[in-house]
């Protein structure tokens, strides 16, 4: 098992290293990066919107349910929901969902290119295949995942306000006062550092799994599953490590 870990880690590192070569034509790489950003960013908006609003709403209702004491001000719900949205819910849960959506997409797309010899065709043309296939995907994930997580944070808090208002648990103004009272800009920075880490992990691990697919359709499916599983495990592991190191 240890040998397997070092084998994959070494091959993953070498693949990332081979990406760093001068692009054959920068304009083509730029176009591909833009295409990936649209696919990854715009394509994930609906799922991010749905999960974020519901995460915020459920957190508000459950926090209110647990705060039974009359001595605790209702505004604390706003503090708890906003802080947990910024620190944990939006970055981590959204990234786990994105690992499922983007990760499987990247691994299966590149895996299919591998088994149908499209990557061989690129190499024979003299194109640096890791650079052309991985670089645009990783760069677009590094940009779009933090943006999606910022959006998710806002929607999560918005969902909390909406649920509190509609169910009569807490007035919007009280919720916002609570959220503002404990807001720290540092927490946003911490969330963004998580987002960048997760974006890199999801994209690079998924590309790695896809790039080294061998076989046919069955193996493409397996690579896709592995990409999601490993991305999720590493997101949770790095979540703990980052919290321990930075907070």
């Amino acid at each position, binding site marked *: 098992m240890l040998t397997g870990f070092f084998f994959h880690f070494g091959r993953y590192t070498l693949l990332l290293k081979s990406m760093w070569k001068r692009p*054959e*034509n920068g*304009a*083509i790489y730029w176009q591909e990066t833009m295409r990936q950003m649209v696919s990854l960013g715009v394509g994930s908006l609906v799922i991010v919107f749905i999960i974020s609003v519901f995460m915020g709403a459920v957190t508000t209702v459950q926090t209110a349910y647990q705060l039974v004491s009359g001595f605790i001000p209702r505004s604390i719900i706003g503090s708890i929901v906003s802080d947990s949205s910024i620190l944990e819910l939006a970055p981590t849960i959204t990234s786990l969902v994105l690992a499922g959506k983007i990760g499987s997409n990247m691994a299966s797309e590149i895996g*299919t*290119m591998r088994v*149908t*010899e*499209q990557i*061989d*065709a690129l*190499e*024979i*043309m*003299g*194109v640096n295949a890791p650079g052309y296939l991985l670089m645009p995907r990783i760069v677009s994930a590094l940009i779009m995942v933090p943006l999606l997580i910022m959006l998710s944070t806002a929607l999560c808090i918005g969902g909390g306000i909406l649920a509190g208002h509609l169910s009569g648990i807490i007035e919007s103004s009280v919720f916002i006062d609570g959220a503002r009272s404990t807001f720290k800009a540092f927490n946003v920075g911490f969330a963004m550092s998580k987002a960048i880490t997760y974006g890199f992990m999801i994209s690079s691990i998924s590309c790695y799994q896809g790039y080294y697919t061998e076989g046919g359709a069955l193996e493409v499916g397996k690579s896709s599953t592995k990409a999601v599983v490993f991305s999720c495990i590493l997101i949770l592991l790095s979540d703990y490590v980052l919290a321990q190191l930075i907070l």
Partner: protein
Amino acid sequence: MIRLQDVRKTFGQQEVLKGISSTFHPGKVNMIIGASGSGKSVLMKAMVGLHPITSGHIFYGDTDLANINETDRLSLRRKIGMLFQNSALFDSMTVEENVLFPLNMFTQESKSQKLERVNFCLERVGLINTNKKFPSEISGGMKKRVGIARAIVLNPAFLFVDEPNSGLDPLTSILIDELIKEITEEYQMTTLVNTHDMNSVMEIGDHIVYIYKGEKCWEGDKNAILTTDNEILNNFVFATNFLKDFKQRRN
């Protein structure tokens, strides 16, 4: 010209290529034939640099593929065109974008010049009004033609074709074979075709190398293949009942 000198390739303990030597000349359709699993695909992938060889030499002109630096390797690869068995067209691109891709990557020509070249190549392989179609919208034979157009768009000196007739009907196979023969002679390319289709061999083969269990078993032209005494090659060539009958009549 491509020259192989004692090319060997092993995967783990298994030796797949066992010291193959041969020379392939420009303007000729050189065919590598052999049964499935004989090592001909590995040989072709080794020749284009996708599989590094274990020992021996592959010379492109005077350049030894095993002893060149990365920059020279990339520049050599730009002189190579390849048609893959399943065409290997980029699914996310249209026919036009597929053929345009190498031009976009490696040339600084204007957009109109590139499109002119793309249209020329597509017309050369007999494809018109397919520019905006995706690979999933065209037939297997048309995919092969697009693959050939993409392979020749940069005017390569070397053309590799892997199983050009697999999955094609006999009529389309003949058209693809004729196309390979025509462009080889027209552009004086060194063409290597990997096949086990004897119809193709007899139609277009100028120089034939027969691979058996990783070894070069026979080499010659298409006339010699019908009269050779090589028992292993005869078993391969006259495998069908129709050809067995031909062989009996010949004898």
